[in-house]
């Protein structure tokens, strides 16, 4: 595998955002998007959106339902090909690569956290986390060892053999975070990662997500319509009808 070793965090538990002075581990632009546009039939989902992501920094994408947040995330992540505009990863144009190459790119350089975790219900937590690593060609033993380290550093020690159904919502999302980070991605994409959780649990998941991606030097994009959730991120954009109507640097 061609990625940097993981750097587990050992910060104490808290459910309030860390102080504003938290030093950003900026390492040059990880991803840049210019003029992204996307239509579905007659619906304009994106109408010219620019995004800059730095390694170790996090961006909250906010806005009401239907404003184009998920479409933006999918275009950035190479799940969708934009109709117009460019996406570059570490200076390389990736937005319009073919299906196969984008698929490889996602496997190798991106991590994903979904609203409902989308863990494989029949596999134990540890195997769920190991899966992306195995997709990259690691053997089962290596992948499982790495997954165990991640579980330990995310406070999931002892739950290795539990299935997703035997985990709480917050624990399941932490498993999803570990799964997103195990391959050492350049960018982590999270679409409504706290959408299925209560406030306190959502805050805990956001703390783990932002801290671990920052420590790993990865850029993080979090789609959310919840301002408290966005408050955990370094920057935010506000979308409406496929355009960015507001930008803010939170820390």
């Amino acid at each position, binding site marked *: 595998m061609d990625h940097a070793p993981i750097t587990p965090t050992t910060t104490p538990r808290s459910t309030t955002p860390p102080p504003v002075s938290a030093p950003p581990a900026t390492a040059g632009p990880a991803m840049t998007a210019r003029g992204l546009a996307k239509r579905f039939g007659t619906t304009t989902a994106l109408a010219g959106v620019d995004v800059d992501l730095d390694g170790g920094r996090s961006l909250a994408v906010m806005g009401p339902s239907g404003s184009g947040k998920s479409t933006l995330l999918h275009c950035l*992540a190479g*799940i969708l090909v934009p109709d117009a505009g460019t996406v570059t990863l570490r200076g390389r144009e990736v937005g319009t690569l073919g299906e196969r190459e*984008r*698929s*490889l*790119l*996602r*496997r*190798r350089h*991106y991590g*994903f956290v*979904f609203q*409902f975790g*989308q*863990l*494989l*219900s*029949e*596999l*134990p937590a540890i195997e769920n986390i190991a*899966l*992306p690593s*195995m*997709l990259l060609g690691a053997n089962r033993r290596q992948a499982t060892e790495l997954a165990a380290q991640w579980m330990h550093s995310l406070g999931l020690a002892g739950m290795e053999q539990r*299935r997703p159904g035997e985990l709480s919502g917050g624990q399941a999302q932490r498993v999803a975070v570990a799964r997103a980070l195990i391959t050492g991605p350049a960018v982590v994409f999270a679409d409504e990662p706290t959408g299925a959780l209560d406030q306190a649990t959502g805050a805990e998941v956001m703390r783990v997500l932002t801290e671990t991606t920052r420590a790993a030097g990865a850029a993080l994009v979090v789609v959310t319509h919840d301002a408290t959730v966005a408050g955990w991120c370094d920057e935010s954009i506000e979308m409406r009808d496929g355009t960015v109507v507001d930008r803010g640097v939170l820390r």
Partner: protein
Amino acid sequence: MNNETDWDYLVPLLQKAFGETLWMVSISLLIAGVAGLALGLAVYVTRRGNFLENRIVFTVLNLLINTIRPIPFIIFVFAVGPLTMALVGRTIGIEAAIPPMAIMAAVAFARLVEQNLVALDPGVVEAARAMGASRWRIVWSVLIPEALGPLILAFTFLTIAVIDMSAVVGMIGAGGLGDFAIRHGYQRFNWEVVWATVAIIIVLVQLVQVLGNALARKALRR
């Protein structure tokens, strides 16, 4: 006709019939397991909205399954006679029993496989695609493990259905337990032979069911 059952004469025949049943059932299941899994997967992945969506392939395969499945097996055995002839070079005997059994079982298993896959959470497949898993990886690392428990139960059900079919193919000289029960029991008014054979089939079916349930339970909580 005869009140004294000549077990010294019948036991070797019964053993032979048992062997024939096991042979027919095993070969048919082997073919039907592989073909049915492939066919069921093909129908699932080409279904509308799935990752190899293909209307023509889906329609043809779906129609094939829907056409064959409702045909009563006793009629199907004769209906596929020409195909059986082409495949094994004869339409009677134990070899001739394999094509109809394997085809009917494959089609039944395909539907069971497809139904169990449709019941999975589509979000999980979407997530795997987002993560960049290739199509084959999705099949082997997501679909099959997620549906393993129900698939084992489906295969258990199939095994019992194939044992049932094996009794019918006695008609075309394929031998087996069903044929034994009819020729040495029913046709000679020897109920002792009929019931003894029935008891053997019941035990066989029970063994399959217990084994299948145990395997499925193991798969469901590894």
